[in-house]
């Protein structure tokens, strides 16, 4: 059958009765192949999209930790291996840089979908992704320990220092604070948080030149260094997995943690006695005179590949729209993430992320060269924390490393 006729039939079906069309996802033909990260919320989306498979419609998924390395080559071919990618605000950037994803405006106009305007991620006026979940790093504290120490929950990093000092000096805990300061992505992310919290901008406006070797950068590093006095001395090797385990073992009183890890923290299973019931998800802290909290907001959403046939693009779009339909929202699914989907009733585990959104935190920047600065920070910052260099020297090294990388990628000439 003629493709045009087919797709217009779908369109007619959708217009006349969208409920019926959605029952079978409304796809008549096409191949859907989705690449994405591997965790329960995305697996739910992948499984829901796979339900659309049927006669003439093939749906497959590849949800893997290696998605960042695979997605660019996987969407590059013509036709591309993957017809859709599930991305976050950092991982959409390489796809945008290489022009591998298509604007969704036409598909939305033609097929609609059961999502809100807020879920549309627009770049330069075009809808490039449909978001479905949010995430952020925020504070978590132990109610019982803070009560025992007689202190209030901290709302700024200055408070965190004060609270940690009380807990330490009263001998309750030796290292009361935890955050993922492992060399590499983790410590760079903590610097980003702190720098944004100070009100900094990573780049000189409208240019790819870095702008971190300034007072705000130095203040950020010094604050981080002060915090490390209350952290396990191995902090440069401890990533989120280890910090989380410390928390569950009851060794920490305050930590900076991802909202997406909150669910297991609140469950008794796998925690030392008395830890889970005293765990409180709290706001992200501010720092210095900063107005916004020292953290970043993240979203996850889906994109559709550019180098594929329109038929496959439509099939992929419909399958994924079906996958983020409010009807997927069972209690179990609701507990997997902080969904941005209508009909999601916030669970206790989402408290921290919602507090972060309300506090007006900034999203992690979708700037083409942000990831280069991030990896330069990850490689150069440890020198400052191991005491080899001054803050200024370290920041100068970061800028130098970033500029070399940005030149290679053609951002700076």
């Amino acid at each position, binding site marked *: 059958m003629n493709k045009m006729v087919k797709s217009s039939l779908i369109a007619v079906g959708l217009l006349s009765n969208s409920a019926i069309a959605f029952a079978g996802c409304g796809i008549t033909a096409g191949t859907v192949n989705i690449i994405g990260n591997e*965790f329960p919320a995305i697996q739910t989306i992948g499984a829901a999209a796979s339900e659309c498979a049927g006669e003439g419609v093939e749906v497959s998924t590849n949800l893997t930790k290696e998605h960042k390395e695979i997605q660019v080559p996987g969407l*590059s*071919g013509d036709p591309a291996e993957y017809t859709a990618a599930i991305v976050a605000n950092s991982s959409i950037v390489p796809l945008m840089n290489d022009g591998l994803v298509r604007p969704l405006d036409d598909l939305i106009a033609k097929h609609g979908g059961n999502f809100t305007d807020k879920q549309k991620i627009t770049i330069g006026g075009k809808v490039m992704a449909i978001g479905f979940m949010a995430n952020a790093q925020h504070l978590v504290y132990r109610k019982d320990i803070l009560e025992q120490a007689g202190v209030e929950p901290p709302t700024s990093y200055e408070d965190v220092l004060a609270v940690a000092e009380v807990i330490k000096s009263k001998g309750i805990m030796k290292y009361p604070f935890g955050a993922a300061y492992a060399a590499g992505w983790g410590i760079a992310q903590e610097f980003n948080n702190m720098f944004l919290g100070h009100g900094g901008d990573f780049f000189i406006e409208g240019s790819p030149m870095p702008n971190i070797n300034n007072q705000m950068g130095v203040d950020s590093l010094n604050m981080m260094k002060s915090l490390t006095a209350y952290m396990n001395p191995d902090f440069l090797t401890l990533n989120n997995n280890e910090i989380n*385990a*410390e928390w569950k073992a009851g060794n920490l009183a305050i930590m900076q943690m991802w909202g997406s*890890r909150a669910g297991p923290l609140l469950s008794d299973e796998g925690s030392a006695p008395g830890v889970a019931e005293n765990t409180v998800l709290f706001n992200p802290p501010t720092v210095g005179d900063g107005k916004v909290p020292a953290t970043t907001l993240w979203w996850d959403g889906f994109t559709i590949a550019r180098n594929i046939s329109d038929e496959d693009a439509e099939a992929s779009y419909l399958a994924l729209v079906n996958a983020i339909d409010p009807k997927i929202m069972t209690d179990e699914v609701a507990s997997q993430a902080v969904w941005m989907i209508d009909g999601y009733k916030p669970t206790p585990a989402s408290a921290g992320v919602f507090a972060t959104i309300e506090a007006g935190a900034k999203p992690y920047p979708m700037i083409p060269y942000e990831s280069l600065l991030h990896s330069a920070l990850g490689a150069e910052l440890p020198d400052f924390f191991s005491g080899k260099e001054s803050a200024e020297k370290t920041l100068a090294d970061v800028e130098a490393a970033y500029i070399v990388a940005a030149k290679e990628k053609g951002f700076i000439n």
Partner: protein
Amino acid sequence: MNSSIVENKPLSLKLFSGVFIIIWLFVAAFPFFWTFWGSFKVELDFFSKENWTNAITGIRTLHETGGNFTGNGYHGAWVQEEFWRASLNTGIVCFFVVLISLTIGTLGGYALSRSNFRYAFWLLILALVFRAMPPITLVSGYLLPFFEWGLWGKLSTTIVVLVAINQPFTLWMLHSFFKKIPKELDESAMVDGCTAFQAFRHVIIPVMWPGVITTGLFSFLLAYNDFAVTAMLLSKENQTMVPKIASFMGTTQTEGNVMFAVAAVVLATVPLFILVMFFQRQIVSGLTAGAVKG
């Protein structure tokens, strides 16, 4: 043979070598006994942040599961996460990598060793280059063409890549073995009326057995333990054991299930255990006769 020497050993030396072996075995195997034991505990015990003795006593395991040991890690890894599928894939990859490497290696190595050109030297250089280059560099170069040609994600592609990466090394190693075999041997076989292939099949191969075993062992371990190639080139359903284990460990933003990984490591070691137990005589005698010479 050796026994006469052993019997002559003074007691002090016997004692020393005995003690040394015990220390060595302890150092070599202790982490694995520890892992084996710990794989039946819960995470809070095995990776205890309170006190490492929890891993032995298992107090949290008792509290959470009601028993001193739990098979949850195994059940989760094998049944829930379908680790069996990954083991099957590893089996396929290992089998074909060893088979292909050895076929090309023996035939090619034999031909090269009988040729009068300076192949060996250039092979050595190639082997060096390939062993020196981190596989991740090669793999990121392969990714784009593989996607374009529709080869990505298949077990066969991964097998070919693993063979290719290791082939110069295999060829060079087997070539050194063949060089130790005097040319007169195949010449005399030819005089007896054998074709070149028959000479190879009936005269050379039996003599070559040790070299083949050693080289096979290397190829096997390469395929068995590879992470860089298999993680990037295989789709989810074709994943082998090592990337599967890595996927149990969680991402930056989400928690994994470390005990699945620990159980999976034990499961991944079992076939090796069986293999070595069954074939240790062959492996040792294989390694014995010719051994490897530079």
